[in-house]
Every structure is written in structure tokens, then in C-alpha cells.
């Protein structure tokens, strides 16, 4: 058991412990902070797997973007210090049983599959390669999904503004007229 192995199990314990606390904590703000720790742990796992680019994206998008967005919406919609209602015991037990059964089932499948074509070649993708393949128009390029996802982001941006917009006076009058 060398240092790298120990670091892997420490990161795994951090991810799973923080995730369990994030889904069970009764204070919503604490739950968001535990989610933050879990996502940082996942970024650490990517660093451990030596895919630095994905790790950087994970930190920028999830830790810097989504968690901040979630914390903002918590502040906008409720008192963060207030405890949430405890879920009903029956539901908790059945959900835990379903989750445990699923975990056990999948663990069993993974354990018995036996991945025997594991290659020992080092996997060190450079940002250079990723960028070249991402924007290449040959048969292994990802230019089409790249463009589609940029349209999706534009649509999401417009959609967010439209959904969260406060209805103005003129709009309300217009809507009322429509209803009549």
C-alpha cells in the first residue's frame, strides 16, 4: 500500500462522507456546504487520475458556478438557519433499503464482471489534444456537439431570463385582457 493508494481511499472517504451529510443534513445551508466539499473531493479525484483539465473544469463550473447559484437561491427563497421538516420514517427506511439494495446489486455486478482488457498504457491527455479533437471536423471530431451545446447554453440563458422575469404592468394588463 503506497502513498497514491492511501490518497485515493482518503479522497473516496471525503467524497462519500460529504455526500451522505449533504443528503441527510436538516439545515439547507449546511447541506449546500457539504455538497461543496463533495464536489471538491471529486475534483481531487480527477487530479488523482491525472486529468487536470477535467478537474479544472469541475472546480470552475461546479464549485465556482453551480454551488454559488444554489446558495444564492437558498438565500432568496428561505431562512437558511431554519431546520427543514424531517422526512417520514417509513419513507426514509424504504428509500435507504432501495439505495442499499441498488448499491449491493451493482457492487456484485462490478465485482463479478472482471475487467480483463485493462491496458497499462499511461493516460496523459494534454489540453492541446483535447482542444484539437474538440474542434476537428474529421470523423472523430466533436465540432457538431460543441456547436449544439453552445446553442443549448444560449437557449438556457434566454429561458432563465424569461422565466425569472418579474411581470411588468404592461404584461399583466395584456395577460388579463387575454383571459377575458
Amino acid at each position, binding site marked *: 500500500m503506497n502513498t497514491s493508494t492511501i490518497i485515493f481511499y482518503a479522497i473516496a472517504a471525503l467524497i*462519500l462522507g460529504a455526500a451522505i451529510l449533504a443528503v441527510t443534513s436538516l439545515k439547507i445551508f449546511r447541506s449546500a456546504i457539504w455538497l461543496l466539499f463533495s464536489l471538491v473531493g471529486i475534483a481531487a*479525484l480527477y487530479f488523482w487520475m491525472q486529468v487536470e483539465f477535467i478537474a479544472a473544469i469541475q472546480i470552475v463550473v461546479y464549485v465556482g458556478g453551480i454551488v454559488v447559484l444554489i446558495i444564492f437561491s437558498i438565500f432568496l427563497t428561505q431562512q437558511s438557519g431554519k431546520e427543514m421538516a424531517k422526512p417520514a420514517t417509513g419513507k426514509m427506511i424504504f428509500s435507504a433499503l432501495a*439505495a442499499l439494495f441498488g448499491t449491493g446489486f451493482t*457492487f456484485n455486478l462490478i465485482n463479478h464482471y472482471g475487467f480483463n482488457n485493462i491496458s497499462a498504457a499511461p493516460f496523459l*491527455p494534454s489540453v492541446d489534444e483535447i482542444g484539437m*479533437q474538440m474542434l476537428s471536423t474529421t470523423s472523430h471530431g466533436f465540432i457538431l456537439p460543441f456547436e449544439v451545446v453552445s446553442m443549448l447554453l444560449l437557449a438556457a440563458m434566454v429561458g432563465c431570463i424569461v422565466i425569472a422575469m*418579474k411581470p411588468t404592468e404592461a404584461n399583466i394588463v395584456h395577460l388579463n385582457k387575454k383571459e377575458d
Partner: protein
Amino acid sequence: MNEVPLTHILFVSTALFFIGMYGLFTRRNIITMLMSIELMLNSVNINFVAFNKYLFPDKLDGLFFSLFIITIAAAEAAVAIAIIINLYRSHQSIDVDDATEMKF
């Protein structure tokens, strides 16, 4: 580096997925349900990167899949939060049990 077998990374991501599923089943607050969904999406990303690293180190497709999943998760979180704010404005609450107008 290769002392940790692929299966152990898959165990971590499986456990993370089912923790997210447990959260989705027990929570009644939309924001915390969204957080559970983020956990599940992250477990899928770990799987993609691990398979790419261990089974196909000469290709990059797993990395691209996880990049696109991260992008779509960001878009999804933004739209979901816009919906949450709109729901709070009309119902003064973000519990799923309080929004039952469209329930059949």
C-alpha cells in the same frame, strides 16, 4: 498508480449515485432535490473518466462526454433555479408537496 483497480473507482461512483438517489427520494425541498441530482451527474462523470483512463488510454471520448455532461448540468441548474424563484414568487414555498396544481 495502477495499484488501485478500476473496480474500486466504480464502487465509489456507484455509492455516490445511490446516495444521490436516496436524497432524491427523501427530500421534499426542490433545492435539495437539485443538489441530489448534481451528485448523480457527478458519479456518471467519474465513471466516464475512469473507463477512459483504464480501458482506452489512447482515446479521449470519455473526457468529451464528461465535458458535455458538465455543460448540460450547468444549463440545467440555471433553468431549475429560475423555475424555483418563479415558484417561490407564486406559492411562497418551494416544497414539492405545495405545488400540486398539475397533479392528476
